[in-house]
């Protein structure tokens, strides 16, 4: 975990510094990666919060990744109904462009 955080910080630092360099160059849009990354992370957080509040879902089994407003859901849930519920919950979050629902079925044979 620690290494990941250091790596992320390092990457961010590199991007920030490169963004600064580019800012003086001909392309004023080059600072985009940082804000896009932050936006992805913020949106992922909103989606996770929405899933955590949805009755009948187990958010410790759903994994959320976001890229440019496109949400990828993975992990596993009990049945198709729950998978659809997770998908529609994610779609309903403000800022979500589309949902790639890759959640699989793992059922304990109950309900």
């Amino acid at each position, binding site marked *: 975990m620690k290494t990941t955080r250091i790596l992320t910080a390092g990457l961010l630092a590199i991007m920030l510094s490169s963004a600064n360099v580019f800012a003086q160059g001909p392309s004023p849009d080059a600072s985009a990666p940082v804000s896009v990354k932050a936006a992805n992370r913020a949106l992922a957080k909103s989606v996770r919060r929405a899933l955590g509040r949805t009755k009948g879902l187990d958010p410790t089994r759903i994994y959320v990744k976001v890229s440019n407003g496109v949400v990828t859901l*993975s992990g596993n849930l009990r049945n198709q109904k729950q998978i659809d519920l997770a998908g529609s919950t994610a779609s309903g979050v403000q800022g979500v462009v589309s949902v790639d629902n890759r959640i699989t079925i793992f059922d304990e044979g109950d309900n």
Partner: protein
Amino acid sequence: MDTKATLLIGATAASLGLFSTGAFAQSSVTLYGMVDLGVQYLTNANSKHDGVAGLQSGNVYPSNWGITGREDLGGGYAAVFKLENGINMANGATQSPSSFFNRSAYVGVDSPYGTATIGRQYKIMFDMSLYYDPTYQAQYSLLSAGLIPDGTTLSNAIKYKSITVGGLSGEAEYSFGQQDPGHMAAGSYAGIGLDYQFRSFSTRVVYEQTRGTIAAPVDTSSELDKRFSAAAKLRIGTATLFAGFLNVNGQLQMSPDGNMYWGGAYYQITPALGVSAEVDHYQTRDNGHPNWFIFEGTYNLSKRTSLYVFAGYLDVGGGKNYTLNYLDTSSPGNLNQTGVIAGIRHAF
């Protein structure tokens, strides 16, 4: 378990005009199942240190098929039932010689206050541990270590499962056991469990006690197996961390007296590829300190079909009768074991 093969019997009957009112409209019967088969290689499978290779059914989850149904009774009430048979995919045999619907055979009522069911059903420890085990109680898992000895299912059982209120839910179960006149306590079971979920964190506690049986001339019906367990899990990013504890005491000792500790993690590398690892440690009073080291990887071909691999190592730690694969109930040689499994699982 959700399936394409849902037969809307009640709805069809109603539409045919068999019922004079629409009150019975929402009734359904669903056929479902899970088929799981792989190849296993296991070392020290006998006391002469010989290994064994062969097909092994139900590696991720026991292969099964069943029928479940639900009839809406109105006012938030519904009648529910389930019949589930365990199958050995390697040879087509039923899993249990004495019980056809060995995995589940129950009927009951679902209500706004919870669900009450009677029949053959899972123990509380199974219901409330499945998702607190990084490998979801596969053939190499906490089941190998003896978290749920003598099977995961009980006959003659009454169960109540609450609804979830503010993240909190609970279950209670009682089994009449052998139902032997004059020995009503023989083989009886009582269990209770609570689960609490808050955002990406959840935790649960379970207490169970099982009484010994009478199989003349052996009578252990005065002995109890008491087990208390606490466990928690936390999702961080695309990973989930797990930890748990079990205390076993009482004379019956379905698994040895002592404390069990487990920890592990699941990591979703890509949406299709996930890996998990776990370590189970059993600190027994007088049967050694065994350790189980388990690694698992799953690649999803679709929502319903996946390929998987397992690798496990059992260090018996001076104890007897421990096994890596929980289907092998006792070790012939009390030796350390290494095992690998590769297979395919499909749910329908």
